């Protein structure tokens, strides 16, 4: 395979432009290679079109449907031919063509800083990769960290040239604060100027004492198509703790003395699996693509698996 052309900002100068940190020239080359791979495999034709037919009925060119006339409707869209045949006033409806708004929501709460490497690193890399795929397909991409301590979101941008500001923004994201997933989503939704339809990619560990349902329902109710990506650290999947320990919750600071025995470990694994199965069940019932990844996996493999697994985009 010929080497992929480097995206804007690649090279040492690009490293400096990125400010170092999580993203470097090698990361950018991987991004471009990932886009090329997706295009060749045509795993997401819909996403590669510049324009997408939205479900919104409006001023498009393609006829979609009729509806009864109501007072105040634009008379230009009355179907006079139908009125001549049936004697009923009806408006012609057209599918409105619009670009896709991709909202990448990365959980940056304190729990995402756990793991080696931290879960947040993989979450940001996945977010950056999906953002770049979107930018490469002329979609509008916005990024929003979720968490108490997070700064304002990055507004929607279009075009591959926007990747550098996105990466710089993501470099500044760090884990901290409590999850409060629903509260963070509410804050995010409040910041949106227009309640456009779009695609919301939620990357989180979904460790929320209040559960994940409220947050995801909020997004769904705001006409956002969802993709859920659950990130777990390997030591969360299979803890290697033994003996007497003092557990400290990274977000709440709560401490707990505990003697880790095999029985305790088994119970923990059982509860963790229950949490994941609950999330997957919720998504499956609502046709929401859901992916569970471990933080020690390479981001490009994870992204490729998401596209090849299908269902990421409709």
């Amino acid at each position: 395979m010929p080497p992929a052309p480097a995206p804007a900002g690649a090279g040492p100068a690009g490293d400096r432009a990125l400010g170092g940190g999580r993203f470097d020239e090698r990361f950018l080359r991987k991004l471009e290679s990932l886009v090329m791979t997706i295009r060749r495999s045509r795993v997401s034709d819909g996403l590669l079109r510049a324009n997408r037919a939205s479900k919104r009925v409006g001023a498009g060119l393609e006829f979609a449907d009729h509806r009864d006339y109501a007072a105040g409707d634009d008379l230009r869209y009355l179907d006079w031919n139908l009125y001549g045949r049936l004697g009923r006033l009806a408006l012609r409806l057209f599918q409105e063509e619009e670009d896709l708004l991709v909202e990448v929501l990365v959980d940056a709460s304190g729990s995402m800083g756990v793991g080696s490497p931290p879960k947040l690193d993989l979450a940001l890399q996945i977010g950056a990769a999906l953002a770049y795929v979107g930018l490469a397909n002329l979609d509008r991409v916005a990024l929003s960290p979720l968490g108490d301590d997070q700064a304002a979101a990055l507004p929607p941008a279009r075009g591959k040239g926007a990747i550098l500001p996105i990466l710089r923004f993501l470099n500044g994201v760090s884990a901290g604060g409590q999850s409060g997933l629903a509260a963070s989503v509410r804050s995010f939704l409040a910041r949106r100027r227009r309640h456009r339809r779009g695609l919301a990619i939620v990357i989180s560990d979904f460790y929320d004492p209040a559960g994940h349902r409220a947050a995801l329902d909020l997004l769904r109710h705001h006409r956002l198509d969802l993709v859920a990506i659950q990130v777990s650290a390997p030591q969360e999947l299979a803890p290697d703790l033994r003996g007497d320990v003092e557990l400290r919750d990274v977000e709440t600071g709560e401490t707990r003395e505990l003697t880790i025995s095999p029985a305790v470990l088994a119970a923990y694994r059982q509860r963790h699996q229950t949490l994941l199965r609950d999330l997957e069940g919720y998504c499956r019932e609502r046709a929401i693509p859901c992916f569970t990844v471990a933080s020690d996996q390479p981001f490009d493999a994870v992204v490729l698996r998401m596209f090849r697994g299908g269902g990421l985009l409709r």
Partner: protein
Amino acid sequence: MSLATLMSGPLPVRAAVVAGAVSAAAITALYLVRLRRRRVVVSFAPLWLPAAGPRTTTSWARRLRNLLSLLLALAMFGLVLLAAIDPRPAAADRAGRSLVVLIDRSASMSARDGDRTASGTTRLDRARARATEIVDGLGGADRALVASFAADAVAESGFEADAGRLRRAVAAVAPSEEPGDLPRALAFASAILRGRPRPTVVLVSDGAFSDEARRTSPPELDIRYAGVGPPGRPGHNVGIISFAARRLPVDPSAVEAALVVQNFGVRPASVAVDISAGDATVERVRLDLAPGERRRHELPNVFAPDAKLQAKLLPPADDELALDDVAYAVVPPLPHRRILRVGSADLYLDGALLSLGRTVAVDRLTLAAAEAQRAHWSDYDLVVFDGVAPAAPPDQGRFLFLDPHGPGNPFAERGAVRDPVIADVRRDHPLARQLDLSDVNIASARRLALAAGDVTVAGSFGVPLLIARERPGLRIAAVSFDPRQSDLPMRPAFPLLIANALAWAGPKSDDAAIEAPPALLTGASARPREDLPEVAIAHVGFHRVGDMVVAANLSDARESDTATPADLALGGRKLAPPDPPAWRGGIRVGHLALWLALALLLLEWASYHRRWTT
């Protein structure tokens, strides 16, 4: 209190109290310090929550678990301290005794009282077991030394409080073939105990000591007697008390042996004794012995092709001591003697002299030549004047005159007698030993006058024919007739007469009853010969000392008497039994405490992992 004192025995109570107080305080302080656990940061504590139990660490249950754990730790430490103190019952914990456990390993301790098989238990085995009980029963402050004795006493250990070392010393006591010397052993113990607190001797023995040893007043010691074997039980033993052999003075080629056997039992005994020389059995003697009978049996002419004689007793089935069933004797070598024969050639006489064997050297001289060497006559064992007499009668030396006549005849001649008949013979005289002179035909004999002190060994109606004269430094035997004028040279009596004359005249001749020279005794030091060093014999059997082979036997009636006394009295004072053991139970408190501590440790381990304690 030195470190050596602390490490060498049970921990003193005072030190244990101090150590216990300090350590209990330290343990309690450590329990008061909150356990610092390893801190682990988790991303979502609720996943662990249901397993975490009550959230508060100051709950009463937690306090109770801590208290239980503390109590377990204190209990374990207390038990370890108790084991270190190694307490004994106060009644038996006599402070400061210095004991010498004196184990009798003399020959009688090899007796097997009950089981008489070769692998059966000997008295020494029981003595070792009894001594082990004694050292196991020592008090906490006691110190003991294990010693053993037979003819001599030796220390098997130093003064110890460690029962293990003392037990090993007891087990190392080996049986001896020597008689026991109790006064010497007690003197040894007394010397060891001098200056030590509360000196005590525990004598572990069968009580088989001589009356002399029993009469001896023991040292001023607290002597206890731990008897082995059933007290007051009669013995069942037949043993050889003495065995010796010698050459007959009149016939050194012949060997006489004497055997003394005694039945120490209370029942009659029929025994056989095999006498062997080298590997060949040459005699078997059967003896029926009454209870307690000591029988002396003489073997007048033992065939001894080998100088080593062994007497092996075939004992009755209930014989208890095998050590005295065998005895050894060495036959002395043939003596070398010199004879000077003076006179003309005499084939009969020379033939008789040749019959004396190669150990007799004969010089032959004429009368003149003999007179020239008169000063050397005393160097000979016997000077024979055959038909001649010296110029002057000899006054020193040993002589045999055959038909003496002439100026130097020591017996005055009073005429002659024709055809004398030997009518009187003194059978008890050494010159007549085993002589058969009856019917000796004699052509004529000189009538010799006897001086005062002269003895007529054989005569013919008042005419002396064989005369013996003994003076200080002088012995003269005289035959008053010419043997060649008789048929005496044709009879066996003639060489016997020459041999008897040689034996009687010889300086070492002894015609008394056979007194068998005793063999060397085990346990005694002896010098077999003047030019040989003194040796101590420990085992019965043959031993080589320099160029000499000697025999050693037990030969001690007191050791062979296997009867056990009901008690033992020394110097008229009956010995008390040893003190009862300090602890008669099978389990010592110290050991029990250690096991309990181990059980508590396991309980604590289990409780910790079961979360009963923290």
